[in-house]
Each structure stands twice: as C-alpha cells, then as structure tokens.
C-alpha cells in the first residue's frame, strides 16, 4: 500500500483539472468527482495506516520513495519523493477524513451557489496540496506544497471575491503567510547550506552531531516562523479570524485539518531539529502558550459565532505548539488529531446554523435547539470535547498536553494551560447557552439542514467522542506508542492533573451558565465595569490596529526620514552623480522601447557575444 | 497496341544507349515532359471543343460545326487567335506578378502528370509518395491564382482570387481525406501500387462515399461546375483572369483544362481501377475512363447553377469534412474486421 501512497494527493489533484475543464457545467458531476477522489484517498490512507501499523514502521525508520527531480551534480539535489511514517499515516487519515466529510457537507451547504463547481475544484486542490505536504520527504517539497496550500487558502477565503471583506481577508491571509513563508524558506535554505540536503531523513541523521548550535538555532528559529504564520501563532495570527469570510466548510477545513495543521505538522516533522535546541524549544513553548491564552481571552468577548470558533482554534493551536515546545510531540499531534474532529464539527455545526439563519451574531440567535436538534446535539458534544470533559476526545489529548507540561517542569505553562482550559469551557458554553438555548429571538427561524450536512455532523460527533480513546492512559497509550521520536514515553496517568482540568472545565461551564444560561445582566455589568478591558478584548487587543499603525507610522515615518535623507543628504552630496545618472538613464531608457524587435536584436547580440566567447577556445589562435 | 507507347520509349532509350547516364536521365525526362505536354495541349484543345459541343447538345443546340468537320478545328482557331492578340498589361498592375502568374499556374498543372499511370508500365515517375506528391503540387495552384488576382490591380480580380483561396484551401482538406481511405486500402501512396491493388475490385465499390467526396472536392478544386465562383462571370466578370488577354489568358484556360484532366486521371487511378480492363490496351482503358469522368464533370457543370460562397464553405466544413472523417473511420474499422475475418487476428 505504501508504494501507492503517492496516489493519495494525486487523486484529488487530478480531480481539480477534471472539474475545471470538463465537468464545470454539471454541478452534480463536479461534486461527485471531488468526493470520489477524496474518498478514494481516504480509503488508501486507511490502507497506509494499517500497513504502517502492521509493519511497525517507526519515525526513525520511515519508508521513503523518491525520484530525483532537479539535480546539479555536486551542487544541488532536489527529490520528489514521499516519506511514510506513523506521523504521516495519522495525518493522512485525519486530513482525508475531514476533507471527505467537509466535501460531503459542502454539497448541501453550497447548494445553489453559482461557484459550486469551482468551489469543489478548489477544495480538491486544497486537499491535494495538504496531502502532498504531509507526504513530502524534504523541505523543498514541503515548501512547494506549503505554498500551494497558501494559494488555495487564498482562493477559498476569497471565494466570495465580490464581497470586499472576503477579498481583503484573502489578501490578508496571503500576505501574512508570505511573511512567514519567507522566514521558513530562509530557515531551510540555511539548513541546506549547512547540511547540503533538504531530505528529512538525511537531516535527522546529520543534525544531532552538528556542532555549530548557534547557527542551527538561527535556522530553527527561522523555520519556526513558518508555523507561526501558518498555524496563526502570535504575532502573525491576524489572518485567521478574518479567514472565516470564506464559505464555512472552508473554515472547517482550514481550521481543522489542512491549513493551520500544516504548521503544527511541520513542527512535528522537524521535531528532530528543535529537540536538539532547548532555547528554541523554549521559544516555541512560550509562543504557543501565550497564543493559547491570548486568543482565549479574545474569544470570550466576541459575538460572531465563527470568530469565536476562530479564536478558539488559535488557542488550541497554541496548545499544540506549546506541547511541541515542551518536548511532547506526541501530545501535540494527538491533540491535533482530536481537535481536527471536534473543531471541524464545530465549524460545520456553525455552518449549519448560518446556513439556516443567514446570521452570524450569536446574540441575535437563541433557542435553536428546538429547530435544529441534530445540529445542537452534535455541537454540544463538540463543545464538551473542546472544553475537555471526559470521556470525550478533547479531554484525553488536552490532558496529555497538560500532563506533559507538568511533567517536564513547566509549571508556569501548566498553570497557563489550565487557565486556558477554563476560558475555553467558558466561552464555548457562553456560545452554546446564548445561541442554542436561551430565548428565541424574533424573526429568526432555524430549520434542520439537509442530510448531506447532518450526516457528516453525526460522523464527526462520533469521532469527537471516540477518537480520544486511542491515546488514553487506560488504553495502553495507543497513540504515543505509535507516534513518537526516540523512545515511546509513557506518561503515567496523572490523576491530579486530570481532576483539576475536569474541575476547571466544569467551572467554566458553570460560570457560563450563571452568566448566560439564564436571564441575567451580569455580563453587561461586568462589561461596563471593566469597559476598557472589555474593549480591549472585543477589539482583539488592537493587534490589527497596531499593525496598521506600525505600518503607517513606522514604515511611513521611516520612509519620510529616508526621503529627507535622500533629498538633502544624498542628493546634496551626489547631485553631480545624480545628474550623470539621469543623463545616462535617459540614454539607457532608449533600450526600453517596448518594441519586440529591438529586444530580439539585443538578445541576438547577446547570443553573438556568448557564441564568440564560447567559440574562442575552438578558434584558438583567432581570438587569443 | 498495348505496348505502343512503352515500345516507343524503349526504342528511344535504345538510341541513347551510348550516352553518359546523366544525359540519358535528362533526355528521357525531357521526352516524358514533351509527351505529357503534348497530351495536355491536345486534351485542352479538344476538351474545350468537347465542352462546347456537350453543352450545345444539352441545350438543344448544335454547337461549333463550321470550321473543320463537325467544327473540330474550332479550338485550333481560337488558340491561334489568342496567340495573335495584343498583349495588354494594365497600367497600375504589378507588372512582373501579372506576367508571371499564368506561367506559374501552368507549372503545377504539368507537374502533377508525373505520377499518373497512363497504362501498364506507363508512368513517368513512379514516386513512392505519388498521391501525396499530387496533392502537394496541386496545392500551389492557389498561389498563382492569387498572383493573377493581385497583379491585375482590379477589384473583381482581387475578389475572385480571394474567393479562390477560401475555396481551394477549404476543399483541399476533404479531398485529401477522401483519398486517405483509398490509401488505407491499398497500403501505399504509390500510384502504381494503388492501381495494382484494384486488379480485382475497383475502389469505387469499396469507397463509394470517398469517391463522391473526391468528386465534389475535385470539382471545387478545379473551379468547375457549381463551384466556379472564382470566375463567376455573372458576379465578378472573370475573377482573377479579368485583366488577362491573349496568350496569358490562354495559359490560364489551358491549365484549367489540364487540371480537369489530371483530377479525372487521379479519380480513375484511385477509384476506377486505373488502366485495368479487358480486351483493350491498358492506356486506352485509362483514357476511356478519364473521358467518362470528364464527361461527368461537364454534365454537372452544365446542369447546376452556381452555389453561393457561404453555402460553399458551409458545405465543405459541415458536410464534406465530417463525412470524409467518418469515411476514414469506417474504412479503418472495415479493414480491421476484414483482417479479423481472413487472417483471424487484428
């Protein structure tokens, strides 16, 4: 099976041109093609997982298939290849499963949208890129797919391109990611400069023995910038909340399985690199932890259902990054997996609500459970999972992270994590109480969504419940004996930590019920009392504004300064030079005629000169 | 009788036996050329006469009957007269283009005869790309017509040559495709082999559709019958030939009839069994079949009114082309089925 694993991304990739060029006019066929492709991929992913499991392939001894792609002997070697290890297998499964469900869901959600077919083509390409990223066996390939994922996210976020916000959000995601990607690219090129290879396996072998840790640390930090951008960690998180301008299924896909997971996945993939650098690990851990808290606090004050979920994603991603930072890659990946299911469920549920109401403000909803039984039930399950109540999936993975943090002696981070868990429970149930229970608002009548939408919800709900069981301390730590670097570490069940997190979650839920579960003016009063804090939270700590200000003030100010400098200092000194430049420029401008023939003439002149140069040895005596 | 022409050729070759080989080649080539030219001139003269007579009988008239027995010398008189006419080159004409166009149009008209198998062993040059050579050379006729139309600096002439380009370039395609069916059956481009392959069954029986397409497209290619838009005198005077006088005009006329004979000869070669036939000498059979073809061309011409340019092009692209493609497909499948039945394999 593994030898055919390359088909997993290729199938949806083929679906893309088929939809674009052939079936575009026939909506039904387009959806069918996309779903069939991803379903086939899913089946193959299951096969891969099974084989990895049965053959006992480990992270240290992965299966690799590669063909040379770009080769300059002695200078550069880039392969096109796939790398299969437990990490890959798990990610493949998660991505294909979530993508499959999202696509099925989209059939109902996008029904009637003029861009139906192109939506499915983008989804296919998006899944294909993510799958390619997961399978990539070297940095170059991963970067290639990384960029493709970015491109698709841009396309999908800006799907309603006629809406200015959507277009702007797409652009924002694109630009922010470019910044991060640049860092990432710099990082792995540094690595290439040091080790002469992009290949993960070769790097993993080479890194531990490398002496110049300072340089390595720089490279690692640069590589980390990539996940910061892609997984929306502070300070490059600004694009993610805006990304919900895209169709909701896309948000589900981005937030659960594809886009943001890519950053975390990269951390896991490059874990060898980080593991050898404690300082960088610390940075990773604190960035993750800070992001977790930071975005959880923002989520508390948001009113838009998708925005709340978006900040929650950021928060959870912070968790994962933190887990990576504290050295428990396994925990991070475990949480990534469970989170994928319940976050997808949450978004799809939210989509179901939006689909029914055409409304995103939770305070204008209410009492939805009467009309939307399935949606409500599944949404509550997901929320419980997110809040971390046993025995749901979120509990086990979050617990693993907290336990790992605690075990590795990051007490501060542990406390922070616990606080986040509390906040998480609070804001999720604030959302649930306000939107699904509470009083019915006038004018809004929900109705249950069609089967294509509810069935994925139900499947995901089941997964949200059971997916945690693969990694509980009571089930032999199934996950951590599967996905690990070095030694499989068995975290002993830390009942104290479990208990605390359960209590904290219950407290959060309880507080939410107090504030929002019944008619109350407490939230308002608190908001009034702490108006400035509230505003701070509502406005997301003014990060966007700060960025804007920074750009306006700092960049423009700097430009102003440079301008002054330029005009008065440089010009003053180099006036003569400037004149010379201008005159020569005027002459040189003639080269830029816009006339094709002139260009061709120049090209052929160059050809002649090169030919002369190359021919010089042949002619021997003629030239020399 | 059978060997009269091959005998002459052999005799002449015998005369040249002593000469160096290159001289032999060139001399024999020239001889063939002279033979072909004589054939063309004679044919053109008498086809014009025939055309006038046939049209006359179709129209309940008598036609030329004063000069010579049954008016047989009429075309001679016309030709001599044209030779003696004033040669006018219109002011404003592109002189050299105007002068050279009739010559150019005559060259391919003669060249195509190289691959016509006039009889058993009577093929001037048995090229292995025979039919393809025919198509290639014939396609250059358009250039000459364009030159004639352009050189005259006359609006009617220009319109006519534009029409001719549109028409000839279009109809070349179904013409080629219709021939492909025959080539597939014969398995060769060589005209001698195509004729040989028809010893038992004429390809018109196996390729009736292709023959029809060939006939229509060839009518258009030689600007005859309902497809004579290029020189539709009711609309554009005489098309590209409007400004030509005397001998130059005669050359156009001549090449037109030469083309008529050559497409008929090719039709005979490809579809009507070439020179195969009982009792009579092979070359006579060939000629008889060619004249039957020519008669059909004339019959059509004097029966149908002229088609309109957009119908003409539409007919080509919408009917003939798909039909010829379908014919190729059917032929291919048919050959395969035949192989399956006879050889037991694909």
């Amino acid at each position, binding site marked *: 099976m593994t030898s055919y694993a390359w088909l997993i991304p290729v199938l949806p990739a083929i679906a893309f041109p088929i939809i674009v060029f052939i079936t575009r006019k026939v909506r039904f066929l387009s959806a069918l093609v996309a779903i069939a492709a991803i379903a086939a991929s899913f089946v193959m992913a299951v096969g891969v997982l099974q084989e990895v499991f049965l053959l006992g392939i480990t992270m240290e001894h992965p299966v690799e298939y590669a063909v040379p792609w770009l080769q300059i002997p002695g200078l550069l070697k880039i392969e096109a290849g796939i790398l299969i290890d437990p990490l890959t297998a798990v990610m493949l499964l998660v991505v294909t499963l979530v993508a499959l469900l999202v696509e099925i869901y989209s059939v109902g959600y996008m029904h009637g949208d003029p861009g139906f077919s192109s939506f499915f083509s983008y989804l296919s390409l998006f899944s294909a890129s993510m799958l390619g990223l997961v399978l990539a066996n070297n940095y170059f390939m991963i970067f290639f797919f990384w960029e493709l994922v970015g491109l698709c996210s841009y396309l999908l976020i800006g799907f309603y391109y006629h809406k200015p916000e959507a277009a702007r959000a797409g652009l924002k995601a694109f630009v922010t990611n470019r910044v991060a990607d640049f860092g990432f690219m710099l990082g792995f090129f540094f690595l290439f400069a040091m080790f002469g290879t992009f290949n993960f396996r070769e790097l993993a072998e080479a890194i531990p023995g490398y002496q110049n840790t300072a340089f390595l640390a720089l490279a690692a930090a640069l590589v980390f910038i990539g996940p910061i951008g892609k997984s929306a960690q502070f300070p490059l998180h600004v694009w993610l909340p805006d990304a919900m301008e895209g169709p909701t299924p896309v948000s589900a896909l981005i937030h659960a399985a594809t886009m943001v997971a890519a950053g975390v996945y990269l951390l896991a993939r490059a874990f060898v690199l980080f593991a050898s650098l404690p300082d960088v690990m610390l940075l990773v851990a604190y960035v993750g932890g800070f992001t977790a808290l930071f975005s959880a606090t923002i989520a508390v004050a948001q009113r838009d259902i998708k925005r709340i979920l978006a900040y929650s994603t950021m928060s959870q991603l912070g968790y994962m990054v933190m887990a990576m930072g504290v050295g428990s890659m396994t925990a991070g990946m475990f949480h990534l997996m469970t989170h994928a299911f319940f976050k997808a469920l949450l978004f799809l549920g939210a989509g179901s609500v939006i689909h029914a109401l055409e409304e995103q403000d939770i305070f204008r909803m209410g009492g939805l459970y009467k009309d939307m039984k399935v949606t409500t039930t599944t949404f509550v399950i997901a929320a419980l999972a997110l809040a971390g109540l046993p025995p749901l999936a979120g509990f086990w993975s979050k617990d693993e992270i907290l336990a790992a943090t605690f075990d590795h002696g990051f007490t501060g981070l542990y406390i922070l994590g616990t606080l986040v868990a509390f906040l998480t429970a609070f804001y999720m149930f604030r959302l649930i109480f306000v939107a699904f229970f509470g009083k019915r608002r006038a004018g809004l009548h929900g109705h249950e969504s069609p089967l294509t939408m509810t069935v994925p919800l139900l499947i995901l709900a089941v997964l949200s419940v059971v997916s945690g069981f693969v990694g509980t301390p009571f089930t032999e730590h199934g996950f951590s004996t599967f996905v690990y670097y070095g030694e499989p570490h068995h975290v002993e069940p830390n009942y104290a930590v479990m208990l605390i997190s359960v209590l904290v979650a219950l407290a959060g839920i309880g507080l939410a019920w107090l504030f929002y579960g019944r008619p109350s003016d407490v939230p308002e009063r608190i908001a009034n009392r702490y108006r400035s804090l509230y505003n701070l939270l509502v406005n997301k700590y003014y990060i966007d504004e700060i960025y804007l200000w920074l750009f306006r003030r700092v960049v423009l100010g700097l430009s102003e300064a440079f301008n002054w400098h330029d005009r008065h200092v440089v010009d003053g000194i180099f006036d003569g030079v400037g004149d010379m430049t201008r005159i020569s420029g005027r002459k040189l401008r003639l080269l*830029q*005629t*816009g*006339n*094709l*023939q002139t*260009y*061709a*003439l120049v090209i*052929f002149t160059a050809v002649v000169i090169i030919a002369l140069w190359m021919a010089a040895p042949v002619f021997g005596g003629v030239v020399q | 009788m059978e060997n009269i022409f091959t005998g002459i050729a052999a005799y002449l070759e015998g005369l040249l036996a002593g000469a160096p080989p290159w001289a032999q080649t060139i001399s024999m080539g020239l001889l063939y050329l002279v033979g072909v030219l004589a054939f063309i001139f004679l044919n053109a003269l008498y086809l014009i006469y025939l055309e006038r007579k046939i049209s006359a009988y179709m129209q309940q008239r008598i036609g030329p009957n004063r000069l010579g027995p049954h008016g047989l010398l009429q075309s001679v008189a016309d030709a001599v007269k044209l030779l003696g006419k004033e040669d006018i080159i219109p002011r404003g004409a592109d002189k050299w283009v105007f002068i050279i166009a009739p010559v150019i149009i005559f060259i391919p008209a003669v060249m195509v005869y190289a691959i016509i198998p006039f009889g058993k062993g009577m093929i001037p040059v048995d090229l292995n790309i025979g039919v393809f050579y025919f198509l290639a050379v014939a396609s250059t006729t358009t250039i000459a017509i364009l030159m004639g139309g352009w050189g005259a600096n006359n609006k009617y002439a220009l319109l006519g040559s534009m029409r001719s380009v549109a028409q000839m370039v279009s109809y070349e395609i179904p013409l080629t495709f219709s021939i492909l069916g025959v080539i597939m059956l014969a398995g060769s481009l060589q005209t001698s082999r195509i004729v040989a392959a028809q010893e038992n069954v004429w390809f018109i029986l196996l390729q009736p559709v292709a023959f029809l397409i060939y006939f229509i497209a060839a009518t258009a290619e030689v600007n005859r019958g309902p497809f004579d838009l290029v020189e539709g005198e009711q609309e554009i005077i005489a098309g590209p030939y409007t400004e030509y006088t005397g001998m130059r005009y005669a050359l156009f006329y001549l090449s037109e009839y030469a083309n008529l004979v050559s497409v008929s000869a090719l039709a005979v070669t490809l579809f009507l069994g070439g020179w195969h036939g009982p009792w009579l000498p092979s070359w006579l059979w060939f000629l008889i079949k060619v004249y039957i073809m020519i008669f059909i061309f004339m019959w059509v011409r004097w029966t149908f009114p002229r088609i309109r340019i957009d119908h003409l092009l539409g007919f080509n692209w919408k009917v003939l082309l798909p039909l010829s493609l379908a014919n190729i497909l059917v032929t291919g499948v048919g050959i395969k089925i035949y192989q399956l039945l006879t050889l037991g394999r694909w």
Partner: protein
Amino acid sequence: MITLNHYLALGGLLFCIGLFGALAKKNAVAVLMGIELMLNAVNINLVAFNHFLEPARVTGQVFAIFVIVVAAAEVAVGLALVLNIYRRRLESNVDDLDWMKW
C-alpha cells in the same frame, strides 16, 4: 562532393538572412516571414544531419515535420494577431506596436 558542411553553411546563411528580416523589417507580416525563413533553415540542418549521420533512421525528418507543424500553428495565430491589430489600428507596422512598454 557535397558534404554535410555545405548544408550546414547553407542553413546558417538562410538562418541569418531570416534573422535579419525578423529584426530589421517594419511590417509585421515581413517579420513573420523572416521567422519562417529561420525555421526552414533549421529544418535543412535537421534533415542534413539525418541524411549524413543517421541515414538508416528518420529522426531528423520527424523533427522537421514537428517544426513545420509548429510553424503552421505559429503563422495561423500570428496572422490572426496581425489582422486583429490591423483592424484596431489600421496599421501593421511593428514599429508602432510598442505596447510592451507599459
């Protein structure tokens, strides 16, 4: 005795004449004609190499046919462009077609 080099030289000369035409002519159609000459020159070389170096195979001729096909497509598109430009500008001189400057 005509050798391969004769053909190569002929091809080279034809190529350079075509190049000159493509570079130095005003009329867009003339530029196209220059390019056609260049392509023909290339074909001469291909066929000559085929004939002198590998007579048993027809690779060079096959490539020449590909070149001819590409040339046909190129001419069709090129002329369509010229026609279109002519319709808009009533001009087919390349000199005035300097829109690439923007």
